[in-house]
């Protein structure tokens, strides 16, 4: 009995120990980042490192005072959101089409989509730039949204078609027997049932957009239209390095993701698994 109890506690202690190690590894750097962004200037720029003389939010003040941080933030959110809607609409259609209908070219199309997914994107920059410029989508947030929506399409089509394959075909056929058209079946029967999948794809897309740097740097030049990653880059690689302020900005950029993950955690875990099995 005592032995069993001992075993139980040893097991518990081991689990907690491991969990603490994991959290230190995955979250520790973030905690340190936030702590460092609260240093005062003089203590931050000292070597060897020392405890701060005072804890201050002056770095955050600086970010809001000297950069259009709020604008960048709103732009990033806007682009992520608009492109997410376009992307989800088109790629769920395509995912459904690829998963459900026996069209001879489906395999070929899937192959092509995988091809596009593995293509290194530098080869695409100049043609895309020209195209967007000619369409008047250069230096426009809408243009960037469209680009993001389409650029991430292969991945989301792959993920979503996995979901559609998972959905039992019998239910759809029952609906069709009742006289519903393809599009009605898709909207009324299939879509509501794969909400976890849609949310997974949406989250993936959001995270990709939120961090995308290269196209944002090439396609946007006006300061009022910048998104966060290029803005951070200019703090990082400017003539003067504002590292303390950069860490403050970085802490704020990392923040919304946490909220979204919190809200969608349940769906995410279910969704990714289901989507990935057939993907």
């Amino acid at each position, binding site marked *: 009995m005592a032995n069993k109890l001992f075993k139980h506690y040893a097991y518990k202690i081991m689990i907690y120990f491991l969990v603490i190690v*994991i959290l230190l590894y*995955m979250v520790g750097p973030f905690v340190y980042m936030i702590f460092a962004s609260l240093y005062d200037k003089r203590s931050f720029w000292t070597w060897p490192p020392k405890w701060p003389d005072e804890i201050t939010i002056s770095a955050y003040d600086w970010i809001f005072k000297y950069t259009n941080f709020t604008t960048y933030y709103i732009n990033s959110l806007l682009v992520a959101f608009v492109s997410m809607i376009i992307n989800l609409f088109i790629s769920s259609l395509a995912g459904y089409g*690829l998963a459900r209908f026996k069209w001879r070219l489906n395999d070929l*199309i899937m192959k092509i989509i995988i091809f596009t997914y593995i293509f290194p994107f530098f*080869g695409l920059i100049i043609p895309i730039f020209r195209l967007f410029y000619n369409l008047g989508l250069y230096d426009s947030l809408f243009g960037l949204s469209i*680009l993001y929506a389409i*650029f991430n399409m292969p991945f989301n089509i792959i993920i979503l078609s996995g979901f559609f394959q998972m959905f039992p075909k019998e239910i759809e056929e029952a609906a069709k027997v009742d006289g519903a058209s393809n599009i009605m079946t898709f909207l009324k029967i299939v879509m509501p049932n794969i909400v976890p999948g849609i949310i997974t794809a949406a989250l993936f897309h959001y995270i990709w957009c939120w961090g995308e740097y290269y196209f944002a740097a090439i396609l946007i030049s006006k300061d009022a239209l910048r998104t966060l990653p290029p803005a951070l880059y200019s703090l990082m690689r400017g003539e003067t390095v504002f590292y303390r302020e950069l860490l403050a900005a970085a802490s704020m950029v990392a923040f919304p993701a946490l909220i979204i993950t919190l809200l969608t955690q349940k769906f995410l*875990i279910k969704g990714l698994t289901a989507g*990935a099995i057939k993907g």
Partner: protein
Amino acid sequence: MKKIASDTKSALFFILPAIICLAFIYFFPIFLCFYQSLTDESLLRETSNFIGLNNYFRLLNDADFYRAINNTIIWAFTSSFLQALIGLGIALILNQEFKGRTVSRVLVILPWTTPIIVICVLWAWLFAHPAGIINYLLVASGVIGQSIPWLASKSYSLWITCFVWTWSSTPLFVIAVLGALQSVPPSLYDAAKVDGANAFQIFRSIVLPHILPVFSVMFTLRLIASFNHFSTIFFLTEGGPAGSSETMPIFIFRRFWKEYDLGYAAAASITNMALMYIIWSSYSFLRGKLLGE
């Protein structure tokens, strides 16, 4: 017969919007990229000449190209394996019963949801030499005698970038495995316990079969993503020092933006794609054999 025709039509209806979109951003630019790879187009000129396969021959004689290929393969496979292993370990631990499980599950996802530039800012600062906290702690605790220039040394830079990328994408595996673990019926565990199976046996005969499909798909996707990954290395070392952490995407980037050699960069892109396609299809073939799909 009629069913087939309507299937084709409906499929077309659903797929066509995506195809048109992809044509703009992918098919046409890839087509153009292929054409450019046969010319000597440069960013510094307005005209270009058709030079056939010369860019490809040049590529085959370029020692930097082989180094980049080598680095890419090492980088992508190492980071994918590490992501898979660490992700699996973390998921198995987070699947146990303990207080604060939900919170830790959410917190662990954090590195993945954070933009890669933030992650690079953070780690570049932690790994700085000599004034970086990691060096400071290691020297102060006596683990190393001299501080190490992590990001500026031939022997470490590739591994450090690999580590940072691994760190930031491990959560994907954690999520995937956690999800798969939830699909294991609890009764299976009980039955195994009654039979007196130990932890390893339970893992092998119950857990593994359930997570393997997800795991292998995840691995493929991460492998492709790692092969094409650019940002981490770009922000941390830009392929340096002296090209020691230069992978294919960085190689293409440098030909493109530092030497303005569009044709050559295009040839490298096409070659890279072909190479990846070979790796990818042999991998899926292997996976099909192993999993009996």
